[in-house]
């Protein structure tokens, strides 16, 4: 029996000793190694020695701790308990005291956090409704913090106070209607208060019409934002996802020449794709010749890619992909054609719109942001304005608020000349989700006017309607009859 115990603890000792050894002997630089591409000995970048130390010692300490525990339990503890026949450590006492220590240290930790990070929390709201949200927050915090402190203190205090004692019997106490009614009713009252207050705050923010609000369209896409101002006519031009062309018409605005050019490009594309589809077998031959000239050793990935392409052609994947593309573009062409004559869509209102890469706002002016998404759901999050709204493809959403502090004011208040308002994306939307933001500048009316003056109109007023016609559009092979078929009902869902 003893022998076996020794055998086990020996193995354990070895295991943990090796862990300990690796962690002591391996300063973090072994794990964390510099970019091999850099030629000079790299200076540790953004990684101060103290943090390295922190991890390093954490590993070290933990390994040590674990080692101690194991050694203690399986050797010393067990052996001495066997020898003396009495418990070495009174765990009831230890656990009871640990719960008190946890309570005290935990409270200290919470207090420290509140002081240390408290000033970063809910930084001064910079919008009119922000104050009402913060007010609501403070009420909620008041109640919940009180409940938190009372219940947690009771919990750990009871643990300590009523810890097991030999010979004592617990109270046979199972039921007390009065007590239970009291602690059902009190939370109910508090929550009623919070609900009512919450309702009025929510109602005020979301359902109060703001007739003076100026509208700005905020357009989210993978991965960035654009803003659109309505221009001098104070009217947004129509937009539609079928009109989008990343080069000439990012937001898909209804500008006839641009959209016509897009349609022509699409028609050219379909024609070319149709040719490709017809010529698949000759394409396969060309590729085979090409492949014959290459070798796996020399070309590596290019070789395997080509091989895969040929495989796709042989299996018909390529053909079905081409057919799908032709169909999709055909639908888009039809949808464009169906609207081209509509005076409601192509009403010239878009011409003087301005698309910007920053959002500038005038302090004290109410705004309604109208959100449009190009591809997936995004969320427009502006923590300083206490504003957030999802940006959903196929559905217009909006949020109304009034900025009450200029950027300059915030910079002074926060003593941070670098400070800027941003609109972040808060809904997972792809790999660059974390880096999808647009700067917001709040300023005086004069500053704003100067800025908006400098922003370019969508269509230059001097030479109206001169979109760049893509070169390929000329050698179009598509049948013009299908392209101009207007007999389709305008069935597309408009942006707005």
């Amino acid at each position, binding site marked *: 029996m003893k022998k076996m115990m020794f055998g086990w603890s020996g193995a354990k000792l070895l295991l943990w000793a090796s862990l300990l050894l690796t962690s002591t002997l391996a300063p973090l630089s072994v794990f964390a190694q510099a970019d091999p591409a850099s030629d000079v000995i790299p200076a540790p970048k953004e990684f101060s020695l103290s943090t390295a130390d922190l991890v390093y010692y954490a590993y070290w300490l933990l390994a040590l701790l674990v080692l101690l525990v194991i050694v203690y339990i399986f050797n010393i503890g067990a052996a001495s308990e066997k020898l003396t026949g009495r418990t070495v450590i009174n765990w009831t006492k230890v*656990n009871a005291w640990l719960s008190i220590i946890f309570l005290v240290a935990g409270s200290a930790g919470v207090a420290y956090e509140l002081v240390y990070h408290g000033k970063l929390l809910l930084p001064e709201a910079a919008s009119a409704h922000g104050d009402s949200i913060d007010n609501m*927050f403070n009420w*909620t915090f008041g109640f919940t913090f009180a409940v*938190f402190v009372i219940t947690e203190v009771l919990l750990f205090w*009871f643990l300590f106070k009523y810890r097991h004692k030999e010979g004592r019997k617990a*109270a046979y106490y199972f039921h007390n209607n009065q007590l239970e009614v009291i602690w059902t009713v009190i*939370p109910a009252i508090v929550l009623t208060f919070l609900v009512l207050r919450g309702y009025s705050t929510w109602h005020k923010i979301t359902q109060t019409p703001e007739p003076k609000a100026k509208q700005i369209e905020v357009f989210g896409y*993978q991965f960035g934002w654009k803003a659109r101002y309505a221009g001098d006519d104070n009217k947004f031009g129509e937009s539609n996802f079928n009109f989008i062309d990343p080069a000439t018409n990012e937001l898909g605005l209804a500008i006839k020449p641009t959209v016509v050019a897009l349609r022509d490009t699409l028609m050219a594309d379909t024609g070319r794709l149709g040719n490709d589809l017809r010529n698949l077998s000759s394409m396969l031959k060309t590729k085979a010749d090409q492949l014959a000239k290459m070798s796996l050793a020399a070309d590596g990935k290019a070789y395997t890619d080509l091989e895969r392409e040929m495989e796709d052609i042989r299996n018909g994947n390529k053909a079905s992909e081409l057919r799908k593309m032709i169909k999709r573009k055909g639908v888009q062409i039809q949808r464009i054609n169906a609207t081209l004559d509509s005076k409601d869509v192509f009403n010239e209102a878009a011409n003087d719109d301005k698309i910007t890469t920053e959002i500038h706002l005038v302090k004290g002016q109410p705004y309604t942001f109208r959100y449009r998404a190009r591809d997936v759901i995004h*969320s427009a999050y502006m923590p300083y304005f206490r504003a957030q709204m999802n940006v959903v493809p196929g559905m217009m959403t909006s949020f109304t608020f009034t900025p009450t502090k200029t950027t300059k004011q915030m910079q002074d208040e926060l003593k941070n000349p670098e400070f800027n308002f941003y609109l972040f994306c808060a809904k997972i939307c792809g790999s660059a989700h*974390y880096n999808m933001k647009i700067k917001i500048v709040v300023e005086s009316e004069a500053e704003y006017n100067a800025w908006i003056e400098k922003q370019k109109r969508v269509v230059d007023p001097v030479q109206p309607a001169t979109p760049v016609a893509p070169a390929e559009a000329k050698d179009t092979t598509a049948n013009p009859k299908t392209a101009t078929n207007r007999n389709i009902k305008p069935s597309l869902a408009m942006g707005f």
Partner: protein
Amino acid sequence: MSTAAAHGAHADAHEHHHESFIRKYIFSTDHKMISRQFLITGIVMGVIGMMMSILFRLQLAWPDQKFAILEFFLGRWAKGGVLDANFYMALVTIHGTIMVFYVLTAGLSGTFSNLLIPLQCGARDMASPFLNMLSYWFFFLSSVVLCWSFFVETGPASAGWTVYPPLSALEKAMPGSGFGMTLWLVAIALFIVSALLGGVNYISTVLNMRTKGMSMNRLPLTIWAFFFTAILGLLSFPVLLGAALFLIFDRSFGTSFYLSDIWLNGVGALENVGGSPILYQHLFWFLGHPEVYIILMPALGITSEVIATNARKPIFGYTAMVISLMGISVLSFIVWGHHMFITGMNPFLGSVFMFLTLVIAVPSAVKVFNYLTTLWRGNIRFTPAMLFAIGLVSFFISGGLTGIYLGNAALDINLHDSYFVVAHFHLVMGSAAIFGMFSGIYHWFPKMFGRLMNNTLGYFHFWLTFIAAYLVFFPMHFMGLAGVPRRYYAFSVLPEFNVWLEVNQLITVAAIMAGFAQVLFLWNFFYSIYRGKKSGPNPWNSNTLEWSTPVEHIHGNWPGEIPTVYRGPYEYSREDREEDFYPQHIPGDDEGHGHGAPKTKTAPVHTEEAPAATGGNVLFSALKKVLGFSPR
């Protein structure tokens, strides 16, 4: 004929207790074995999920640092020792999926419902042992499919564990929306089948197969919790299945349930019009919210049992506890909109959901007060199980209270999708439910494996995990309140967030500490299975029926007749008895008054030979005939 043959062979095997290895350990229909299978699979998935969290925690704490060792392990997912942004998303997604569904739904509820429902109700096995076995194997298959997605070229699903379309619906929207996403959906579909098979079984067993004298108001709170959990699952999982099927259609068959007006980079304008991405969210959260209670309620049930046993006191307010569970269950179906306040949903609807959500806080508060009163004037034994149950109560308080912020639509405007949410659900769902699971493992380990776990290691495990969990999740509240959005791959690109790097480093170190603490647990668990101290039949001096079975597992649980139940499960420290416990099956005329005295003293709820012909029973005896298995 083959049925009969199988049956005969089966009966033989039963008699001689010589089952083939495969029938005994792999395709077992014994609920105790199935429970162990659920537990071990859950633990394995939990370790995987935890390792993922440590990986992405490293990235969050030191976004610019190159960890060459990562490239060694992860290859192209960590080129140059830096985690790839797409892979980060995949890790977060699969971590969330694994933890929510695989560990805390199947691992927790699957394990303990299976173990305890027959044992505590006094049944020989589940209503349909065969469906029960299927339930495990669907779960296993589902786990395999999910893990398989790591070996797919474009990587596993990475649209977040909620997989909102269009991101998840469009193959070209991100690499993770390719084949990995298909596998995710298949895995979830299999998982739902497993959950439904389990749920049907749990419900019918509780309703139909209780032993003599086990009226509903003598059921241990664990069983009540598993019962409501199963009902929630049965009613809400099919909705998720529907949502997932629609998503599969949109992905593969060109339908437009969730898609409209999309122009996708690299593809162009899509043909889909008329769908709504928000529809998916409604369907998802119709499961999603009950799901958090599917996770939490079994943990609360376990806690009730463990606290009463170890405080040596009747649980305070048994009836109130059951009513609270019922209230939570009903309400949990009509609050899903609180996840969608800012989706552009009609603000009036937001007000309704806010009201209903805050109502749920009342039964939750009642539960906490009842736990506290149960401890009051107790005689508290610090077993590791008890400590973990206390830990649950503590996390349930701190995590539950932040729910009052998030349920308030006005506050949610600013908090939605920020780290505040991460802090909230990790405390109330992550930490609390995991602690419930640990509590259950320590408490019923002797029942499952016939041996005891080491207490000292348990204490270390508890205190290290408890402290680390608070260190990890508490500071996240502050980040959220300062406006840091969740699911961000790197904070260093935003100068405003740089102040949080330091906090992130603290959190990561604490997370690694938590990871180490789990090594203690794993050691303790697997070591004790083989070499733990042998347990007696009732190591905790507990009242419930499972401790009246022999330590060695046998088919049918009780060697002789199933014991009859004479009183409620929480008769601890009665003045009229010398011992401080009074097992349910010990005869005695006195009913006890721990809770509502049962009126159905005489009516046997179930006798082995002739089950009462209730609807469920008829259904199940028909099923049993079809499938050729009978409960033992």
